[in-house]
């Protein structure tokens, strides 16, 4: 018997008595503040942004949005993003409860753009913020994306003595530019 059939047979033999699957409500009791929650997780919020003022030393900028002109087109191999200082993308939506932004391959072009550059700027339409994770996981975008990340602040670690260090392996900073019509230049 194949490992697959063997495992499935053993599971079937040992499954406990059936338990019902509960329906889970949307839990809309709390009102969440996206900006406050993003900042708590180490993200920065801006309603408008001048890339060169914010990152004066940035040499390589890779942008996937028409609002910002970078100086590095999106490469075909994700590894070529290794020397990018600042990347700019637009999020599909945000989650107020956690201060997260939702990115997929459609927004990123290359999934690694959210991690390999040193800094990430994310444009967000403030009207596209859902209240909490229950709403987020009902968003149809999840069913279309091959890859999707809820990103909440920059990469971080507290693995040594619980001391928080931002910029662990991935991006050192995350700036969310949120407005009805994000102004970025």
């Amino acid at each position, binding site marked *: 018997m194949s490992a697959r059939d063997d495992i499935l047979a053993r599971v079937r033999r040992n499954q406990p008595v059936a338990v019902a*699957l509960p329906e889970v409500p949307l839990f809309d009791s709390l009102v969440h503040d996206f900006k406050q929650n993003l900042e708590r997780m180490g993200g920065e919020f801006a309603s408008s942004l001048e890339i060169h003022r914010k990152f004066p030393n940035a040499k390589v900028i890779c942008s996937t949005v028409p609002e910002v002109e970078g100086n590095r087109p999106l490469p075909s191999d994700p590894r070529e993003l290794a020397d990018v200082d600042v990347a700019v993308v637009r999020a599909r939506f945000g989650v107020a409860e956690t201060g997260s932004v939702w990115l997929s391959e459609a927004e990123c072009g290359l999934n690694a753009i959210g991690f390999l550059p040193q800094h990430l700027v994310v444009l967000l339409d403030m009207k596209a913020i859902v209240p909490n994770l229950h709403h987020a996981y009902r968003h149809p975008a999840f069913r279309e*994306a091959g890859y999707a990340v809820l990103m909440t602040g920059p990469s971080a670690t507290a693995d040594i003595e619980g001391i928080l260090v931002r910029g662990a392996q991935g991006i050192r900073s995350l700036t969310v530019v949120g407005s009805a019509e994000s102004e970025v230049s």
Partner: protein
Amino acid sequence: MKRVDHAEASSHFIKATKHLEFHDKRLWDLRQKRDREAEAIPEWEELRAAASAIKEHTLSHLAEYLEQFERNAVANGMYVHWARDAAEHNQIVFSLLEKHAAKILVKSKSMLTEECEMRPFLETRGIEVVETDLGERIQQLDDEPPSHIVVPAVHKLRRDVAQVFSRTIGTDSKNTEVAYLAESQRKDTRPYYLKAGAGMTGANFAVAETGSFVVCTNEGNADLSANLPPLHIASIGIEKLIPRLSDLAVFVRMLSRSALGSPITQMTSHFRAPRPGAEMHVVLVDNGRAERLGMEGFWRSLKCIRCGACMNTCPVYRRSGGLSYGATYSGPIGVIIDPTFNLRKYSALPFASTLNGSCTNVCPVKIDIHDQIYRWRKVIAERGQLPMVKKEAMRMAGKVLSSPKLYRLAVKAAQAGLDYLPRSMIYNPLNAWGKQRELPSAPKQSFREWYLENR
């Protein structure tokens, strides 16, 4: 196989007082942060009940959900493999690496690959395996297993890390600044992502409905491991299944809050299909789980989402350290899982507990942890796995406590004995209780004597 002696192993941990003090404080701090998060959410208890029910439902229909997951994952373009045990898992991973001529494997943290002892297996076959999570990397470079399932190097102080890094990645051994140590590991690790032939992740959840899986990290190392090399392998225990995408909300809301007291991990990443030009392989691993599913009284341990909250709250774990359990899984959850792998080897672990129930109270999926610990003690006694001293002590106690006459006699004798017996008679190897403790002095009058006088 030799029985793991938890008490003996923890005595070494306890001797390093600075480490012990920090360990206890750090984990209790995580517990308090968890409390603050849980208390801020009015529906917390409803979430726990829902999480528990979703997991129990899935486990009671696991075969169907595994088939559904496989069907959808394959339709999405993934390859799905099945492994009965650790050996099959390791062989599948090695074959994939060989086929893709991958010599370097970058991987994010996975307790399952620890359980399978995959790293040494691959290393003896010429694969360079690079753990990319900072804590896990520290442990790898120090040739130690992780001591905690969420914070693998929590038993180390910064000066220990400085020593390990100066020996292995060439940092300045005198520089113990945490930011410097973390930055050094970042600089050492990032080139590996670019030259690795394959990347590996575990999975926190696998969603049957969409054939996708979810990985939660704070460092972004799983996303780098998965999104740069041309091959992504994910090892997933069969108990990680959940039915629907919407169920993720319940678990993601509680996972990091329970683990670290943060509302969510910095990255919550969802993998549904390979990216263009890359391959994605999932290995579904049994390794004893199907058998555990049939163990009345113990199958609910399969609900575990590996948040580590039970470890952070456990007074025994905080004061003995994860390595003293001598097993992949330590702390209260380890105590109830490990004996299913090897009853004799891990027969001392269910006794590393005060049965205070705190683990059960903080568990986000409502596993009856302390009840299971107690049940294991019974199983171990019934199967004759108690050490001689404990067995004799229990036999005597059973005799004495079942006879009022004998009991009263013993109380009298103890009162006299504690006052007059030489220390060597009381504090000897047969009295494990007296090892680190002074016995209290006996009161002049027993309760029964007082009662007879005053009723």
